[in-house]
């Protein structure tokens, strides 16, 4: 049975769609709102802003996060900034331009109506955050400061030092805590969602595990909202927080929510390379470094000389050579792929050979060390703290790392998944970034969904559906609780020979190798075989210590890694079926004669929404065709 993928985009001129949709929505009477419970899972920018706003509107909200406090969600780590089409600099920015840039940057694989709405709402987000007391950078006259970011030709990025994500999240967290204080939101920290409960085809609640006592609990509601972030940790090493996981969206997928474009993942070119087998995560450095640094590797493979002993004539500035007009400033995906290619040729640098130089010596000579310190001082300090090397004297070493996942649960214009009553917001959904996300737009999407879209659309759903009374004593909850407890028991009973982390690391290596920066059909076939074999071994040979009824971090990880195994398989299936290259998805078979991504708009201009058929069954492919009325698909070129 295939799913009906109705995007429910209203008809009309694009700039009026959201107004029209809002007018057509049914409202819940203020007196009735408190009778409706809404569950929000996740407390990052999307989850916290949604929970706070739903609380303000008068709903009875329950908000869940696995961390010890909602303030720790991984949105907090975003550095660069947040885009808004304010045009405060009169430099030609507009809602339409932000919309255009985002659709094009996404390589024409996103839904135009959603992206346009995002660009419109970007204006409200900044106003809201300023009013909350987010300390954005200011000009001397007291107005908001902006910078251009990620190669944009206009200055539309608002920022709070290098901690924009932290400040925006604290704003949303404080709004959330205000509702906790008002008694409108009940907060459940250290509580992990382990199943979605669907009754008569509607999402009616979740089953959770209390991470301190191990208690399995049921929570019933009229609607469930997932704002649980991306799945970059499927690669083990990523710039995500260690706890970031796919469990909430994966278990919803297994209950019937379609998963869209799982193979669209983003790799960031400027991360600190892996230094040893113990490495637990990768650290991102702002890509602004590429404004002044020059990227190179030795001309000869396996050249072991220190960088300062390699003469100019024996260096390969490969981005400048291949892309004379953009040079080191090519987009993230292009820079990353080229770095991998030279390392694959054996020309990578550092102990592991997985790194390229990012050299500031020319910039220091031309501009002086003081100018460079002023521009990048904090980044240089961070690099030195981690690597113990002084980038003012020796070139930095960088390597690409997984950073963001554009894929996620499929949602319609109202952010509702294929399960009625299940809404998905922020990085957890697939909606706005197509095959590649532009810088400073993740924060924008999280807050747009949470503050300004979801609170309307949840109300419309509740008003339109006469939902019968369901509480946690319903048989479906008992069934889910039993399934969750059974899985926990099974993991603890295996008592094998390898740790959860060692399996996760091996899984990550497979996905990185075959479904990372570039992919090809035989590689993806190999990956599918290896992932299945390793998953089988996992379920017979993993060891999880401790018990189910107390704080057990190995057990938490074990459940998450079990889900990553299944998701990894779906990513490879999706990457294998998409016989084209677009954005972050580069299939080696589909490239232009000069090695650039070759889209196939005739055959692949659609969203691939996969439907679960059973753990060992091939998932079913559903397609939502994409139409471009306002931004016409073109080939990206950076030569």
């Amino acid at each position, binding site marked *: 049975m295939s799913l009906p993928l109705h995007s429910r985009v209203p008809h009309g001129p694009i700039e009026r769609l959201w107004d029209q949709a809002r007018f057509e929505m049914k409202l819940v009477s203020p007196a009735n709102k408190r009778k409706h419970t809404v569950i929000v899972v996740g407390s990052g920018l999307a989850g916290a802003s949604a929970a706070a706003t739903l609380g*303000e509107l008068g709903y009875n909200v329950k908000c869940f996060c696995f961390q*010890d406090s909602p303030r720790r969600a991984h949105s907090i780590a975003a550095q660069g900034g947040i885009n808004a089409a304010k045009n405060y600099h009169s430099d030609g920015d507009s809602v339409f331009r932000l919309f255009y840039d985002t659709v094009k940057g996404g390589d024409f694989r996103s839904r135009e109506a959603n992206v346009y709405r995002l660009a419109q709402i970007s204006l409200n987000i900044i*106003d809201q955050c300023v009013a909350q007391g987010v*300390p954005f950078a200011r000009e001397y006259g007291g107005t908001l400061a902006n910078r251009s970011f990620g190669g944009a030709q206009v200055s539309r990025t608002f920022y709070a030092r290098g901690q924009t994500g932290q400040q925006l999240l604290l704003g949303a967290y*404080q709004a959330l805590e205000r509702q906790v204080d008002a008694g409108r939101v009940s*907060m459940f920290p250290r509580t992990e969602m382990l199943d979605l409960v669907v009754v008569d085809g509607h999402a009616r609640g979740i089953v959770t595990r209390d991470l301190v006592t191990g208690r399995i609990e049921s929570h019933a509601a009229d609607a469930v909202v997932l704002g649980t972030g991306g799945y970059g940790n499927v690669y083990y090493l990523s710039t995500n927080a260690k706890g970031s996981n796919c469990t909430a969206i994966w278990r919803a997928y297994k209950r019937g929510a379609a998963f869209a474009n799982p193979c669209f993942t983003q790799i960031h070119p400027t991360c600190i390379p892996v230094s040893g087998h113990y490495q*637990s995560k990768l650290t991102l450095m702002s890509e602004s470094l590429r404004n002044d640094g020059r990227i190179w590797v030795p001309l000869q493979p396996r050249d072991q000389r220190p960088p300062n002993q390699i003469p100019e004539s024996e260096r390969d500035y490969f981005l400048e050579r291949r892309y004379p007009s953009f040079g080191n400033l090519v987009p993230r995906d292009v820079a990353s792929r080229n770095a991998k290619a030279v390392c694959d040729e054996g020309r990578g640098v550092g102990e592991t050979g997985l790194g390229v130089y990012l050299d500031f010596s020319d910039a220091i000579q031309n501009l002086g060390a003081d100018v460079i310190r002023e521009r990048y001082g904090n980044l240089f300090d961070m690099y030195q703290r981690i690597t*113990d090397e002084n980038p003012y004297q020796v070139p930095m070493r960088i390597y690409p790392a997984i950073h963001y996942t554009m894929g996620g649960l499929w949602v319609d214009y109202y952010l509702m998944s294929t399960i009625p009553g299940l809404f998905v917001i922020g990085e957890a959904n697939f909606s706005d970034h197509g095959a590649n996300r532009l810088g400073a737009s993740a924060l924008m999407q999280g807050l747009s969904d949470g503050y300004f879209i979801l609170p309307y659309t949840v109300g419309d759903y509740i008003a339109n559906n006469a939902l019968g009374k369901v509480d946690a004593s319903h048989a479906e909850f008992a069934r889910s609780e039993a399934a969750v407890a059974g899985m926990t028991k099974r993991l603890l009973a295996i008592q094998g020979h390898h740790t959860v982390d060692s399996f996760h690391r091996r899984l990550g290596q497979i996905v990185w190798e075959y479904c990372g920066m570039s992919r090809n059909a035989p590689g993806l076939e190999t990956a599918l075989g290896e992932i299945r074999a390793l998953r089988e071994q996992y379920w017979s040979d993993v060891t999880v210590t401790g018990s189910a009824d*107390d704080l057990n971090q190995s057990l938490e990880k074990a459940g998450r890694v079990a889900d990553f195994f299944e998701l990894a398989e779906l990513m490879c299936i999706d990457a294998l079926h998409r016989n084209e290259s677009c954005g972050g998805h580069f299939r080696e078979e589909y490239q232009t004669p000069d090695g650039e991504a070759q889209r196939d708009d005739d055959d692949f201009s659609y969203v691939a929404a996969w439907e679960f058929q059973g753990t060992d069954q091939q998932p079913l492919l559903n397609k939502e065709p994409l139409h471009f009325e306002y931004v016409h698909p073109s080939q990206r070129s950076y030569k």
Partner: protein
Amino acid sequence: MRLILQVWRQKGPQARGRMVRYDAGDVNPDMSMLELLDVVNEELILKGEEPIAFEHDCREGICGSCGFMINGIAHGPLPATTVCQLSMRHFRDGQELYLEPWRAKAFPVLKDLVVDRRAFDRVISAGGYITVPTGSAPDGNSILIPKEDADRAMDAAACIGCGACVAACPNASAALFTGAKIAHLGLLPQGQPERHERALRMVRQYNREGFGSCTNIGECEAVCPKGIKLEVIARMNRDYIQAIWQRR
């Protein structure tokens, strides 16, 4: 290099804890403190023992999850650095490190190095915000804020809520944490309408949670990984006293 770890092990909130010695043989100087614990834990798991529980998430010094005492210093010896970014090259080969959880009445130990910091959320919940319902905000540039004020507000807003200030304080005071939020919001024009009410409520809540009083010792400032300054406590005291005076 080789390090000897003496780690606080405590099975649960009610259990008795004790220090347990672990020999870390093959330590890479580039490892972070948390990666060292990962390696020790992998060995423990393979021996069938329970790994050391510790809090962590982003591992880049911003989420505020991690933190414990290393040889009596919150977050260890390196200034302005959380344990997730503290690399082993700052220790001597053969050195003995004592790892203990934050110790404070308001932060009960849950397990090993993990403590319950929900008291911080309750302090924020008691007025650590600006009341502005979604959608009711004026244009961002209609509120002009001198750059210097915005910068000072940002200095205070940089707090990551890790709890090192409480752990380092002999009185287990949360004055630096509470003061940072009161200063951040009180330095901005948007924060003025609720400024006094905020100070009253937040300070009352922090007393209720069992944090001690501030006696201007300054240990908090010395260990704060984000460099929050003692002056935020002065601002808190001023706002609090003014608020009481106004409501006489």
